């Protein structure tokens, strides 16, 4: 199967994903409160970088909720930056959203990590953002790449760019990744396990880690949780290096293909630790990192399927999603 055919296969199979209530459950309960907070802080002028899919549901939903700036004619999103690798999906997004702050047709990892990339300067010029939503539609450390994968480097680069452009700006990172053990790099799993074990060697982390099985068993028994801890710790590490305190606002997990694999979503806040023009305080930063890891170990991911199973919740989510679906259907986006 050629790459064109496999891309088309994926696009076709994803045609009904835009009505997915699980995803929207997280938008409502995990992402929207963060948007509302930033909208209040910035008087509505929330700067948003997203890897939205062709339907751009997140963009449309937050605009409809009034927390992402959009023109009255719905043809301009002045503070929106999006990056889309697939040229056809890029076309759909660009044509139906209208004018945005910047739209790039490329792979985010390529644009951010390759300084020679023709779009690198333009994208870097849009930083800082208030919210960065990275849905990588796949594994963070895929089999075909090194443990220190391009995706991992990309997360690190995003954090460093935010700090470089405005170290005083608090912001949020939304991360979405797939936890499919067979697709994941085993060497990366081993390294993550070792890192977790090293953490647990410190006595003060143990109570927070609680009754979870040890990392080696967690890796085999609850891979989504293993990866959630591992990736969040990595974000906390990147945050610490750039002078931020990471706070895990929430995390979410739901199954796909009858549990064959899971999707994990992380909502992390990054708060600057250093005052403007003040010297970095290593002790404060180390302390913040330890606090972040401890809080992470104390945290649990919300099971989206359980949440949706509660009385009336699915109906409420569906109702909330309906205006977005109507907009998408009106634009005839899904058919192409």
């Amino acid at each position: 199967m050629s790459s064109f055919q496999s891309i088309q296969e994926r696009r076709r199979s994803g045609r009904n994903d835009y009505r997915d209530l699980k995803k929207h459950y997280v938008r409502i309960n995990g992402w929207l409160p963060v948007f509302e907070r930033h909208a209040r802080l910035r008087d509505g002028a929330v700067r948003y970088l997203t890897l939205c899919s062709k339907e751009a549901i997140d963009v449309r939903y937050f605009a409809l909720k009034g927390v992402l700036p959009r023109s009255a004619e719905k043809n301009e999103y002045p503070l929106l930056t999006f990056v889309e690798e697939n040229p056809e999906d890029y076309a759909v997004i660009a044509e139906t959203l209208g004018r945005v702050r910047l739209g790039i047709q490329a792979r985010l990892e390529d644009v951010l990590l390759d300084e020679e990339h023709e779009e690198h300067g333009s994208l870097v010029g849009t930083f800082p953002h208030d919210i960065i939503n990275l849905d990588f539609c796949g594994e963070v450390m895929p089999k075909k790449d090194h443990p220190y994968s391009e995706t991992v480097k990309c997360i690190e680069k995003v954090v460093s760019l935010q700090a470089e452009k405005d170290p005083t700006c608090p912001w949020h990172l939304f991360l979405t990744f797939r936890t499919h053990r067979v697709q994941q790099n085993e060497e990366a799993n081993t390294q993550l396990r070792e890192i977790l074990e090293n953490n647990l060697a410190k006595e003060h982390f143990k109570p927070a880690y609680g009754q979870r099985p040890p990392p080696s068993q967690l890796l085999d028994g609850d891979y989504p949780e293993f990866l959630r801890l591992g990736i969040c710790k990595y974000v906390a590490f990147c945050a610490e290096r750039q002078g931020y305190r990471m706070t895990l606002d929430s995390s979410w997990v739901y199954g796909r293909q009858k549990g064959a694999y899971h999707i994990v979503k992380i909502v992390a806040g990054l708060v600057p630790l250093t005052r403007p023009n003040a010297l970095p305080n290593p002790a404060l930063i180390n302390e913040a990192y330890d606090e972040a890891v401890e809080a992470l170990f104390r945290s649990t991911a919300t099971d989206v399927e359980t949440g949706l199973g509660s009385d009336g919740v699915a109906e409420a989510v569906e109702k909330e999603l309906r205006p977005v679906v109507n907009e998408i259907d009106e634009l005839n986006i899904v058919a192409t």
Partner: protein
Amino acid sequence: MAREPINVAASVIADVSAGIYRSPAGALKELISNAFDADASTIRLSTGWPEFRTFTCTDDGDGITPDHFKSIMGHIGGSTKRDSGEVSGRGRPLVGRIGIGILSIAQVCRSFTVISSVRNSPKKFQAQIDLQPYLLAEARRATLGQSIGTGNQKVRIGEYEIEEAEEEPDAHYTRFIMKNIDVGFRQRLKDVPHTRGGLTPKQFTKGTMLEFLKTVEASTVAEHGAYAQMIWELGVSAPVEYVDAGPVAGERRLDELRSRHSAFDFKAFVDGVQLLKPIRLPQPSAGSIEHRTYPVAHEARLPSGRVLRVTGYLYWQKGRVLPRELQGVLVRVRNVAIGTYDATYMGYPHHEGWKFSQMSGELYVDDGLDQAVNIDRASFRESDEGFIELQSFLFEKLKGGTDEGAGIFTAIKAETRKIARAKRQVEEERKDRLAARAIGSHAKQLRVVTSPEDRPSGISVEGGAVVLDDGIKRLVPRKRLRLFAAICGLIEQEVGAALPRAKRRELYERLAGLVKDL
């Protein structure tokens, strides 16, 4: 005597393939016309504003099959679109004729992707096209009729790769994705005029087409930059509806023009903005300006047997038509504009001064002018019989006889005089009111009456009128009479009793001499 062949260098074709369109809009306009011909309801273009690095265009038209696409790419310029009739399946008059629309993209970028699917087919295809100019040097030495590259009697201007994939049977669309946009094309679109002169560039207001029109209608579109100009040109040229109240507010005689576009049911969007014809006369900022609309229609059989059919309107207003880009006449062939507004009125030979800046118009040519359109679709072959007939018709309308009895320019002159007269009268009445009030007359206006009977002082104020005897009146030029009467009336009324009559007469005679020499 032996007959020798005449050959054309293949570079002619290679040059054409490198881009023939005057402006960015010229190139993109072809994509809109192709979508219109393909019976699309909607076409959406994205320019990748503000960086202009990726252009995309998607229409929901009939789509193309891989075989049809191969046939198009194998015979660029050999369109068979009109072989089966002059209208599309939905009854739209077909715009494309030659089949070089796809080359319009060559001006935007040298390599691009086409993806298309047709109704009732479970397949779609993607073609990666590379229009490289690498054959140009070779083509300069070659002539048509020789074999170049892989084809006989053809010039190879590029290559493409085609792939197929599964698609929903009901999906139908064509999508173009253009990356690596030509540097000049990008620079042109990013250009903001006046920055070099130290002037503040005007900002293009984002929003609807109506908002856009409000921004530009005070002066020119050009001063808002090339991007604004592109939006303008696309709106003007595309077979889409007029903005509200266009083209001439309240003019019912132009309903046919309005309804023909709504019947097409064709919408075009550029960067999310719905294109509408940005033609709304008179421009609202001009207030209740005097204006006239002259609907026109013409049908003529040409010497070759072709029939030229024209309908449209010419428009005049007392004051400049703005934005400046609306000044002139726009010729539409099969509903699509050929070039922009022609301020010379197809080369109208007489000097008409300011009147051209007060006029606008559109001529819809539904038949008989296709052959005259140059391949850039921005100009005409002026020796074509259809063009000559249209030109004569326009000149006749402007200068010669019209259905209304006189040429439009004659009508405009008469209209202008009438307006000027009315304006003068209003002004005089105002002055008369002031004068009557100053004299202290109970009359609402100054009335000047002359009398053959001598007045001792030459002037009297009687019953609200200033009466001048013939002796005094003869001393005053006609055009100064009212002013003279007002001043003398005031003197007569205010100080008349204090001076002897003879003295007053002498004073008035001296005053008459004074106003005469002023």
